[in-house]
């Protein structure tokens, strides 16, 4: 049998329409897509991967990853990774582990509730990919714990930071939002916007920096992760195209979802990956802005979005605002982190003379806007934040953009409460779906209310010298930031 016939049998033949239960019971309204297609069964995944090929190819990818890890342990590469890079991993690896796991949960849900058989099979495979990625990140964390003298984080601290620390609530809320959407929105948000435009910054630009600083295991893990993303990207592109081609009614939804996820991705990546490219690495192969130009502007905007413009798709609504934040974004977030360094579990260093020289070369307005701050630090100024930062009610990062002196905080009153946003993009996202986000309770406001500093420290899992407390016990009065509806 030819692979194409075999693929048809293994997707379309495995799908059936329910007869014993109603449509409502089969796909509850909450999880049913608002997009329409004349015949969902005609949609095909461009990759058409067969499960037996998938297993063979993935097993080889895993073998290659573990070979690099083994070599790193055997010949001592892991112990020689530049210490500044390992500090980046204390932040990034922790965020990544749980983000990948969330994505796995999200795709299991898409596999269950998407209306097209081909999307369901592709999402099942993607769920397995995301699970593999989470496990690779865990293996790497284990390698740093075992072979690097950096005091890497133990699992109980990692999960506590991810659930509670203010710096990670942006990441957590992004993924909790992503896995509680319309199933086609999940594909547009994840596969078209996040994975086509933005994950190249995570899995290509960041590994290049990792390799340049001696972290070969990270390089190998992330290049193999991104090789899975090629399948995901193709699915996202095909779904967007099919929706736009087959029914004019879908355009408004697809546009809204592209606009929303473009802004959420921009904010998350700027705040978390910006420092991983521009600040943590001693050797910096590519700046955040250069990586954004290559993958987001040239590939996504000037490539995919312009190709889809024949069906009416426009560039993301807040593209210009995103572009205007790039000059100062990573520097602004690093200053915020530096001021909060006592409540962080990774080292936020003062940039060296070499770092500053590189900043000036890559970001021409660096000196005019941030030069005095770092000169003051060099002269002995303390620069400690005396409270937790004011956090945006959508992205959950500090309201500190575009740069501290001109930072904005935009209010919206909704059902008797006042919400604050760091940008027009986040404000627009809230206003479009206020009922989804109104239940969000962000830790800053909660903590600043009536809690004493000892409670706050326990909540953040940080001892006064910045080391993790090593506990998962929540202090009294703790409640999760954003409840997630049960998935399956």
């Amino acid at each position, binding site marked *: 049998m030819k692979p194409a016939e075999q693929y048809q049998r293994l997707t379309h033949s495995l799908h059936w329409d329910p007869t014993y239960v109603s449509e409502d019971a089969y796909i509850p309204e909450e999880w049913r897509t608002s997009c329409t297609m004349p015949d969902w069964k005609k949609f095909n995944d461009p990759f058409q991967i067969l499960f037996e090929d998938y297993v063979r190819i993935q097993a080889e990818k895993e073998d290659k990853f573990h070979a690099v890890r083994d070599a790193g342990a055997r010949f001592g590469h892991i112990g020689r990774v530049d210490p500044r890079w390992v500090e980046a991993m204390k932040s990034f690896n922790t965020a990544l582990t749980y983000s990948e796991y969330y994505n796995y949960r999200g795709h299991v849900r898409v596999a269950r509730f998407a209306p097209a058989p081909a999307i369901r099979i592709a999402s099942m495979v993607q769920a397995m990919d995301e699970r593999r990625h989470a496990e690779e990140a865990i293996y790497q964390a284990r390698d740093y714990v075992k072979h690097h003298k950096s005091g890497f984080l133990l699992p109980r601290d990692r999960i506590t930071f991810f659930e509670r620390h203010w710096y990670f609530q942006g990441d957590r809320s992004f993924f909790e939002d992503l896995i509680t959407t319309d199933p086609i929105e999940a594909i547009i948000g994840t596969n078209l916007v996040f994975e086509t435009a933005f994950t190249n910054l995570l899995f290509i630009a960041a590994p290049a920096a990792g390799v340049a600083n001696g972290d070969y295991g990270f*390089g*190998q893990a992330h290049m193999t992760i991104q090789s899975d993303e*090629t399948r995901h990207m193709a699915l996202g592109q095909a779904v967007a195209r099919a929706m736009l081609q087959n029914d004019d009614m879908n355009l408004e939804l697809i546009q809204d979802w592209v606009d929303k996820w473009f802004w959420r991705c921009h904010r998350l990546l700027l705040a978390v990956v910006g420092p991983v490219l521009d600040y943590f690495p001693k050797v910096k192969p590519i700046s955040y802005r250069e990586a954004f130009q290559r993958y987001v502007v040239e590939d996504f905007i000037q490539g995919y979005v312009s190709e889809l413009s024949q069906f009416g798709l426009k560039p993301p609504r807040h593209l210009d605002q995103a572009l205007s934040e790039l000059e100062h974004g990573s520097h602004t977030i690093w200053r915020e982190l530096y001021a909060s360094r006592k409540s962080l579990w990774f080292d936020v260093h003062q940039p060296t003379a070499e770092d500053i020289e590189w900043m000036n070369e890559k970001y021409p307005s660096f000196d005019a806007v941030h030069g005095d701050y770092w000169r003051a630090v060099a002269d002995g100024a303390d620069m400690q934040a005396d409270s937790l930062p004011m956090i945006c009610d959508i992205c959950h990062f500090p309201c500190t953009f575009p740069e501290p002196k001109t930072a904005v905080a935009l209010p919206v009153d909704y059902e008797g409460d006042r919400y604050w946003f760091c940008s027009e993009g986040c404000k627009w996202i809230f206003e479009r779906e206020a009922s989804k986000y109104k239940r969000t309770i962000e830790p800053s406001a909660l903590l600043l209310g009536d809690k004493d500093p000892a409670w706050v420290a326990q909540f953040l899992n940080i001892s006064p010298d910045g080391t993790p407390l090593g506990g998962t016990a929540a202090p009294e009065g703790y409640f999760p930031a954003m409840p997630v509806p049960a998935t399956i």
Partner: protein
Amino acid sequence: MSTKVQRSVVGIELMAGEECDAIVSAVLDDIPHASVVQVPGMVQLDVPDRLVIHASAVETYLGREWDTRDLNQVVSAYRGYFTRWDEEQVVLSWDAEDRGDAPNV
């Protein structure tokens, strides 16, 4: 240049190694002015409009059989649409209807 997109460049970013070298060599035979940039651990290969990888040419450079499905092992990023991916050719193009090169007679 294709009029379908604002910037008509297609390309792949490959994990450096034997397969990457063979794929790059095979493409350079057809498109000598392709852009090949080395970054740590990877190679970025960019060409105008469309890129066709012929399995037979990759096999010649590798000196062994090569299954195009294994391209997924080494491609980490790409720009353009994969419009054909079968035993003979992998086609990356901004023309969504591009079905690849005519077979060699």
